[in-house]
């Protein structure tokens, strides 16, 4: 029994203790020189017969803004709840900065700022009181709290409403308070579950700017969203998840480029002629050319930037380009393609 514990858990225990020790020295262990803020290995969480998260392997590098994208019911919130210690995984491991999160781990939570989806707070407390008490829980001194709280209220746009009861806050204001409490202790990792949910359009823009600002401060941001444009605008990396399975995880640029399939060049041309179409069709990467008045829709089978070659071909054929637009490589297309493919495969299996 003792030998089993030593051999099976020994290396993990030593690794965790070493990480803890190095962290106290201001150092950090990480695979291949990259510090991982979040790491999950075959993470699985079931609710009865439903597998909400299925052998999820997730790596989030420190100092990045990582989007966690998926349709409703994909397993985003369940994964996040495991990461912050609210749920225990059925299988697999979840680590935050190398430390396992399963069970009651206040030391791990100390390094995380978490905003739940549509956060709720005791309505009988005032906004200031809540953050003050949370600040005490994070070990902030009275002076630190006095310095930090006004800044936070201003940052999230709640200045002037600090002394109001939370019960009088609107949904959007509670959302802002949720962001403020997640940033209270200037954590190393900020986990935001659908941060824009319930906010008006202006609020959504403000939140995006806020996240960008937070990332500049050196915090790692992990945010779940079903809003593609939000992830595209804010994040450097993305993991797309569907039915508890990670479909792809990389930088946004790489995810777009990794996807195979045609992209379309939409070009508006003056003096559109058959010669132009004929010459365009001769290009090796062009699979189809369609016309509509003065507009060309060119289907291309490459991920390389071929716009200069297309432009040159049109100009040499006597045409003048008014506008050129490359479509079909946005995150939205990738998302729809991936989720659609996964749904199709799921359907076939059944």
């Amino acid at each position, binding site marked *: 029994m003792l030998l089993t514990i030593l051999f099976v858990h020994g290396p993990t225990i030593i690794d965790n203790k070493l990480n803890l020790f190095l962290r106290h020295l201001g150092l950090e262990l990480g695979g291949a020189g990259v510090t991982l803020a979040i790491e999950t290995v075959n993470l699985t969480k079931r609710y009865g017969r439903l597998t909400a998260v299925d052998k999820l392997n997730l790596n989030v590098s420190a100092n990045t803004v990582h989007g966690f994208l998926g349709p409703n019911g994909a397993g985003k919130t369940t994964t996040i709840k495991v990461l912050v210690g609210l749920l225990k995984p059925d299988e697999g491991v979840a680590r935050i900065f190398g430390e396992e999160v399963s069970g009651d781990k*206040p030391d791990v939570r100390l390094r995380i700022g978490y905003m739940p989806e549509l956060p709720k707070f005791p309505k009988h407390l005032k906004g200031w009181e809540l953050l003050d008490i949370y600040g005490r829980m994070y070990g902030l001194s009275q002076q630190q709290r006095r310095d930090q709280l006004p800044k936070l209220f201003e940052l999230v746009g709640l200045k002037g409403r600090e002394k109001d009861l939370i019960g009088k806050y609107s949904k959007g204001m509670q959302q802002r308070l949720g962001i403020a409490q997640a940033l209270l202790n200037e954590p190393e990792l900020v986990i935001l579950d659908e941060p824009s949910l319930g906010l008006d359009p202006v609020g959504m823009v403000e939140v995006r700017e806020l996240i960008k600002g937070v990332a500049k401060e050196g915090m790692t941001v992990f945010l779940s969203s079903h809003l593609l444009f939000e992830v595209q605008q804010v994040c450097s990396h993305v993991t797309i998840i569907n039915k508890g399975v990670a479909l792809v995880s990389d930088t946004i640029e790489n995810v777009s480029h990794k996807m195979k399939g045609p992209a379309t060049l939409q070009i508006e041309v003056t003096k559109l002629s058959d010669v132009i179409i004929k010459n365009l069709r001769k290009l090796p990467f062009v699979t189809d050319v369609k016309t509509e008045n003065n507009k060309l829709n060119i289907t291309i089978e490459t991920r390389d930037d071929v716009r200069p070659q297309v432009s040159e071909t049109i100009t040499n054929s006597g045409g003048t380009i008014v506008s050129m637009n490359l479509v079909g490589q946005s995150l939205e297309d990738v998302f729809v393609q991936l989720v659609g493919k996964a749904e199709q495969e799921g359907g076939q299996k059944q």
Partner: protein
Amino acid sequence: MTKKATRPSWTTSFLAIVRYELLWNIRKKKFLGVLILAFVFATLTLVLPVILRNLNNLPTEPNPDYVITTGIGFGGFAFFLFALVSVMNSISGEFESGSMIPLLTKPVSRTTIYLGKIFAAFLIILGAYTLLTIYLALGGFIIYGPQNNLHLIFITLFGSIMSTLVWMSIVLAMGSVSKSSMLAALLGIGVWFGLMIAQGILSVFSNQAWILTYALEKAPQEP
């Protein structure tokens, strides 16, 4: 830059939880309502027998044992209700409203949260019980004349608080497990009534009316 995280001492975390619990409990309308209800019960305990006797043209006779026997005894029921309502949604209510989620993700252990909540409830009960006991003792003195064995009030108060703490712990634990205030309250009331019935049955078999009488009966009797 991010702040180097230092975990606060256990006392700091514990006191933060107590503060959190006290601040939002004291402002709850339910809490204030129950406090008023408890005083209404206490007042009825004091005044109702006098009114009923007057209606039957019977004079109010001095009763030097009123506070120790009748007054505190009936007050105990009000105390139980008070304790039940003040803690029935302390944990489960927070789960129901969703405010427990942000709290559980703070760097405070679950045990500290539980203990902090119990301690806050204890402080609330202590304050409320003390006020109610003083109110009953003064009322008993005014209506029924000088009272005997008033020094036992402190023991009664201590006993009430301790027994209520047991109830609070049961209700809090039930609330934590079921995450439902309704279930927590129903179970608490069920067990309370169950014990009341069991106590009645036991007193029939043991020929003792209640525990204090039992203690007095067991004390050395004068010849």
